């Protein structure tokens, strides 16, 4: 007798998704993951738009990662148009990128995952059971938001960042306020890391992931021109197409991607395993949990994100220090003379590798766009792990299975709005 367990909608993840587990008797036959978010055809929306409009439109792909989408798109446009930006702009963009990571990780850890740690259904449960902790963790999130708001002019879909430069730089008082807020939450990020350390699964191990990330250059852990894999292989970001191949997945509106015909895993855990540069406190935390994190399956991703919270707060403080010293004044954005060309760049989004690639005509009108999001890359591995976990758990009751599978999906921190936008390659 065959039966189906349907988990729909997936809760405490961004966007609309569904899992179906098909059983033959008690044996798990297949597990399907469908991301049925309505497609918004962003690549098609961009076609015919001037380069200047592209970042403002594309950041609306997803609110959790609007900042990194905007930055990635600026980089791709500037690559296509051959534009260099100033040191000031580079620093501000890096700072807001960290703000985006803090905001996104904090949201994931404290609003979506934390209820699991306290065995409650959601925020109201947390507010009941752990009101003080909740307030404390949310402070970390608001520090991330403060970076977005101060540097980007808004917490979601930041507005200041434009091709070739930026609007007004932050006034000194703004930077000092930011500094204060970040300094205040730095110890708290460490406590958050302590909080997530015990919550690692100790049952059956899932497949060891094939990690993939941007190869960091310089001190910034999230920026670089090359992609790197666990086996040490490195390829330039703009030839990403040689690495990734795409397959239309069965049921949802997203497409899945294989790397060299195998599922790849991107995100905080991948970055830590692929040796991104760490700051002192983050390095100490990583060192302490090296055993838990190295070659771990995706369920360690929550802890990895907690390590990155420390990292990003520390890095933000470094940059603010530099900005305070430099005392920049407002500058005009670089003059852009539109030209025909293509630009592809990669940035590490909170959830992992993000690629934007555009081609423009001589008037700077977008003629083609390709956006590959981390959730799309992770989808194949997610399906693989879901099947493995369901199989391990054969015989468990529906509730326990539902709970475990949902937690597994959550560990990937999927962003389904982003996932459904991917162009044929």
């Amino acid at each position, binding site marked *: 007798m065959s039966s189906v367990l349907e988990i729909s909608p997936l809760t405490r993840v961004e966007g609309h998704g569904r899992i179906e587990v098909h059983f033959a008797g008690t044996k798990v036959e297949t597990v399907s993951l469908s991301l049925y978010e309505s497609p918004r055809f962003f690549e*098609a*929306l961009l076609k015919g738009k001037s380069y200047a409009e592209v970042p403002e439109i594309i950041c609306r792909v997803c609110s959790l990662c609007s900042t990194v989408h905007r930055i990635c798109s600026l980089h791709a446009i500037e690559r296509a148009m051959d534009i260099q930006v100033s040191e000031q702009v580079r620093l501000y963009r890096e700072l807001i990128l960290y703000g985006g990571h803090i905001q996104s990780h904090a949201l994931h850890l404290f609003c979506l995952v934390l209820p699991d740690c306290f065995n409650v259904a959601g925020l109201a449960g947390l507010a009941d059971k752990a009101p003080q902790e*909740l307030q404390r963790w949310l402070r970390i999130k608001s520090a991330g938001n403060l970076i977005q708001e101060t540097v980007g002019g808004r917490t979601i879909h930041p507005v200041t960042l434009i091709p070739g430069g930026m*609007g*007004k730089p932050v006034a000194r008082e703004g930077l000092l306020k930011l500094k204060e807020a970040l300094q205040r939450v730095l110890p708290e990020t460490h406590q958050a890391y302590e909080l997530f350390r015990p919550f690692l699964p100790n049952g059956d191990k899932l497949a060891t992931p094939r990690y993939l990330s941007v190869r960091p250059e310089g001190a910034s852990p999230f920026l670089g021109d090359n992609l790197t894999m666990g086996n040490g292989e490195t390829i330039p970001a703009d030839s990403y197409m040689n690495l990734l191949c795409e397959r239309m997945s069965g049921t949802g509106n997203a497409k899945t991607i294989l790397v060299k015909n195998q599922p790849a895993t991107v995100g905080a855990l991948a970055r830590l395993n692929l040796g991104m540069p760490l700051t002192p406190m983050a390095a100490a935390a990583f060192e302490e949990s090296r055993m838990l994190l190295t070659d771990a399956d995706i369920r360690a991703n929550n802890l990895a994100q907690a390590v990155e919270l420390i990292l990003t707060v520390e890095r933000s403080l470094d940059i603010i220090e530099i900005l305070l010293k430099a005392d920049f004044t407002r500058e005009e954005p670089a003059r852009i003379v539109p030209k025909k060309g293509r630009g592809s760049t990669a940035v590490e989004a909170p959830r992992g590798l993000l690629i934007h690639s555009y081609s423009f005509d001589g008037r700077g009108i977008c003629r083609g766009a390709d956006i590959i999001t981390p959730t799309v890359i992770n989808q194949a591995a997610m399906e693989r792990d879901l099947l493995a976990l369901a199989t391990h758990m054969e015989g468990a009751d529906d509730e326990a299975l539902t709970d475990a599978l949902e937690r597994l999906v959550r560990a990937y921190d999927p962003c389904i709005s982003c996932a459904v936008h991917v162009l*044929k390659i």
Partner: protein
Amino acid sequence: MKKPIIAIAGLTACSGCQLTLLNCEEELPEIAQRFIIDYFPLGLTERLITGPIDVAIVEGAVSTPSDLEILMKLRNSSHSLVALGTCALWGGIAAMKNQESRKDLAETVYGSAADGLKTFNPQPLHRFVKIDFAITGCPPETGELLATLAALLRGTFPVFPHYPVCSECRSRENLCLLIERNEMCLGPLIQAGCNARCPAVGIGCEGCRGPVTEANVAAETELLLKKGFPMDEIVSRMQRFYPEWDYEQRS
């Protein structure tokens, strides 16, 4: 005081409006206390819309049969329905090319696989159901969202002013990008409430909050044309969040 029962759901959107709620870090614990949150997939493990719900707060446009189903369910089980954000109220970013064929758009992205997609032009909620109140913005402002929640506690909705972004922009003493820098700022046409965020950091208003009650679209268009912007650029920019401008409208 009786706790209002609320539902929060997202349709075709980026989740930014729901995130706006989660971005009220300071107020979240209080909100969790004062309301009964009955359905909120982004923040709560509860898969069924059971009702009765006092107020359903809905983000996003309607573009799939499943969107419509959720919307209908919420409408039928709720006393009031609030459209949260520009997509829900105006169609938003996904609707910007509603005048083009949906099929062609799909094919641009999905090629031949597009046939299997069940989707139609993203539409604002009011095309399908009655909405009782709306909070505009892409994303909405936390202040307006909180004022709305506070009003819900009192069984009512707040009254927001109806004036354009320029008003807030001038009172903030920003440089006028339209006059002083000849930039394509949509401030005169767009509903205020954001405290002119964008011009305040030196970036023209892109119109994310949709049209103000009284918009002299024709005069702004003439002004932009006079400044040398080509019509297609003006149209492209204006339709970013709301596809249905009447370019002849003067009031």
